[in-house]
């Protein structure tokens, strides 16, 4: 309410002072041209004197100017205040010290008034003196003076109001209270309006503050004052009217009026009381729910403190508060923690990216969750499952973070132990498997050799004793054992692959050239065209890598189409942290159903009659690529050609 009035008060004041100036000018004109109806509004009532009109003009102008911001306007209003003060107090002095001066009829001669012609009434003079004084004093900055001004203005309003009532209730001029006995109707009205206007300047002080504040008391005043004033005046007016009309007699009227006053007052005040009670009940409910919520929050806090490691930080991550559990697990004293950041308990276990991700998440206002390894004061480590919750203020800015942690050290240790056990078990199984393949193939050699040996003896010593069929059977046995010997040999090679591997920084172009040199003969026979792109220098297992290239190139030559010569393209491209190599040919291609099968050991797609082989080349390639931690796959179309791609990640020693 007070703010609403404050905002529009300049307009209100301008309108009121404009109205006052207009009225005073009208009255001045009335005196100059002898227009009586302007002077006393109510026939037979007191007239507004010329001096009064002049003072009203000055006052209204002064009040309007006092709301201006410029210093010159301020001084002008002070001067106007002085003029009003002088005229007012001089007129008052005339009454007090019983003399008559030129002032009364200085501008025009009053022929209308019977008593003290031309002189304003004592009340008017007093009010002007007060108004003028207020207009001067209101420009000070002393609080006491300003408060006094507000009270003085209130006094002016009250005097004018009392005078106004006398007009409303049509008290005959002779019966008027002495002090205001000849105040005109418009005089009292203008006094009220002007005094109120000026008091709006310091709306926060005195009676205006009491009326306009946003408190229950002020609201009550705003509701009650207009009611009481209008009710009592209204009832009295009606009473006087009916008594004067002789409708009812005075005694009866007074009783009726009193009863009506009491009844209406009770009803009105009761309505206000009911509303106040409703408001109070609602307020108490709110208060209770607030208390309950607070209590509940307190329980949550207690539960959190008991169960979790809790820390508060400001927006920059500086710790502002921790609970006892935080101190217990980190083994730091509370005073050692507050004011520091969480670097205090950093274990260096996590990399920068980990914390970068954490901060990015919480700065967005989202909750971050994860497991963090921390370091206590005594150097021991502990794992905590952490949730970080950002707190935002009304404008959405993050002003604090809450970190809630659970000790998961035991779980983590168990996990780590389990993981290491698995690794051990896996290593053991792998070694066993390798040993198994090795021994199996080793021992298989012996009986096979005996078969070969004795077939040879048969061939050598008894060849003339065999007929054609017998010789053929011997050859079949011999071929089969040879094939078996090779299979066992490859199995052994496969199981031993990478056993002696050594990582070294190698130029892949160099290895490729060596592999091509080894295959020189078959390349020449097939008249193969090999195109080589730029290859990187990487940490690889050199021997195995050479074998990989060799296998892929020899496959590309072996599986050529009958109608054209092999064209092989070898290239490499970088994909983030790995290199992807491609060996492309224009050979017979592979059907998609076989894309996986070709990498399994001893799996073949063609008969020995079509293409010789043991089904060992690609499984070897796969194993070599996997030794490097990469992947191998094929893209192919039947009769168009195949592209074998494999990745080699960036390895380090």
């Amino acid at each position, binding site marked *: 309410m007070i703010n609403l009035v404050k905002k529009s008060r300049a307009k209100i004041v301008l309108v009121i002072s404009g109205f006052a100036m207009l009225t005073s000018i009208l009255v001045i004109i009335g005196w100059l041209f002898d227009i009586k109806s302007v002077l006393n509004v109510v026939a037979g009532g007191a007239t507004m004197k010329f001096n009064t009109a002049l003072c009203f003009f000055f006052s209204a102008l002064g009040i309007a100017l006092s709301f201006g911001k410029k210093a010159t306007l301020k001084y002008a209003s002070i001067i106007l205040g002085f003029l009003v003060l002088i005229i007012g107090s001089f007129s008052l002095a005339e009454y007090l010290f019983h003399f008559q001066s030129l002032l009364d009829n200085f501008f025009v001669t009053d022929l209308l008034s019977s008593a003290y012609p031309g002189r304003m009434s004592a009340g008017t003079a007093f009010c002007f003196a007060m108004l003028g004084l207020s207009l001067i004093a209101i420009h000070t900055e002393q609080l006491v003076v300003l408060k006094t001004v507000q009270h003085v203005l209130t006094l002016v309003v009250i005097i004018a109001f009392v005078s106004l009532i006398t007009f409303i209730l049509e008290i005959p001029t002779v019966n008027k209270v002495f002090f205001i006995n000849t105040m005109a109707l418009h005089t009292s009205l203008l006094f009220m309006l002007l005094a109120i206007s000026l008091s709006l300047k310091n709306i926060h002080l005195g009676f205006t503050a009491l009326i306009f504040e946003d408190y229950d008391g002020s609201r009550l005043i705003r509701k009650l004052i207009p009611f009481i004033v209008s009710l009592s005046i209204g009832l009295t007016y009606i009473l006087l009217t009916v008594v004067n009309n002789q409708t009812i007699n005075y005694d009866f009227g007074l009783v009726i009026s009193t009863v009506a006053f009491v009844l209406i007052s009770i009803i009105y005040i009761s309505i206000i009381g009911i509303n106040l009670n409703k408001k109070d009940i609602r307020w108490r409910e709110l208060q209770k729910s607030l208390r309950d919520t607070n209590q509940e929050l307190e329980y949550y806090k207690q539960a959190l403190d008991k169960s979790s490691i809790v820390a508060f930080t400001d927006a920059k991550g500086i710790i502002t508060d921790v609970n006892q559990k935080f101190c217990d697990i980190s083994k730091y004293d509370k005073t050692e923690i507050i004011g520091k950041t969480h670097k205090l308990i950093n274990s260096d276990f996590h990399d920068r990216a980990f914390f970068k991700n954490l901060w990015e998440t919480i700065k967005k206002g989202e909750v971050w969750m994860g497991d963090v390894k921390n370091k206590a004061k005594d150097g021991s480590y502990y794992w905590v499952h952490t949730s970080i919750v950002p707190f935002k203020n009304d404008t959405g800015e993050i002003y604090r973070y809450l970190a809630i942690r659970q000790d998961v050290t035991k779980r983590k240790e168990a996990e780590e132990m389990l993981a290491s056990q698995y690794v051990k078990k896996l290593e053991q199984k792998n070694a066993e498997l390798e040993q198994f393949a090795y021994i199996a193939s*080793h021992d298989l*050699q*012996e009986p096979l*050799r*005996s078969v*070969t*040996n*004795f077939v040879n003896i048969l061939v050598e010593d008894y060849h003339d004793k065999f007929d054609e069929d017998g010789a053929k059977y011997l050859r079949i046995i011999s071929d089969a054992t040879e094939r078996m010997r090779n299979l066992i*040999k490859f199995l052994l090679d496969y199981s031993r692959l990478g056993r*002696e591997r050594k990582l070294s920084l190698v130029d892949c172009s160099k290895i490729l050239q060596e592999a091509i040199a080894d295959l020189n003969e078959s390349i020449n026979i097939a008249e193969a065209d090999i195109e080589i792109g730029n290859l990187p220098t990487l940490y690889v297992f050199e021997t195995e890598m050479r074998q990989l290239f060799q296998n892929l190139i020899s496959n590309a030559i072996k599986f050529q189409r009958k109608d054209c010569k092999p064209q092989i393209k070898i290239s490499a491209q970088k994909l983030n942290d790995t290199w992807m190599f491609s060996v492309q040919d224009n050979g017979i291609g592979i059907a998609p159903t076989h894309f996986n099968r070709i990498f399994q050991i001893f799996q073949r797609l063609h008969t020995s009659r079509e293409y010789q082989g043991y089904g060992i080349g690609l499984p070897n390639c796969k194993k070599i690529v996997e030794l490097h931690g990469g992947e191998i796959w094929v893209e192919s179309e039947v009769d168009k050609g195949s592209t074998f791609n494999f990745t080699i990640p960036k390895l380090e020693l």
Partner: protein
Amino acid sequence: MLVDDNPDDNFFHERIIKKSGAAEVVVTKETGYEALEYLKLQRFEKLAHPQLIFLDINMPGMNGWEFIEEYNKLAPDQQGDHVIVMLTTSKNPDDRQIANKNAKVTDFKSKPLTKEMLEEVIDKYFV
């Protein structure tokens, strides 16, 4: 002298040697113990002195390497002139490494012994 637990292999190797006419006597033993016994007794019982020993590694009981350990403890005149270790598989780097470390081993070859292999050995050590 042939030391091999596999009688088939012994038979085959003996046949190669006899056929090539490189040796007067071929002694075959199926265990390391028997072979050591023979070497110890050769002087007293006027047995043929082995100039060349073909030794198999993969034998039950005492294997080839354990045999060599015992063999090294014999008096020089009890020992043979040359020991050729016969490896079961040509590409067996583990066995080859141990063979390289053992000074008493003259050479190592892959099974089976062939006529060409035998001629090469005789040319190298006896001519």
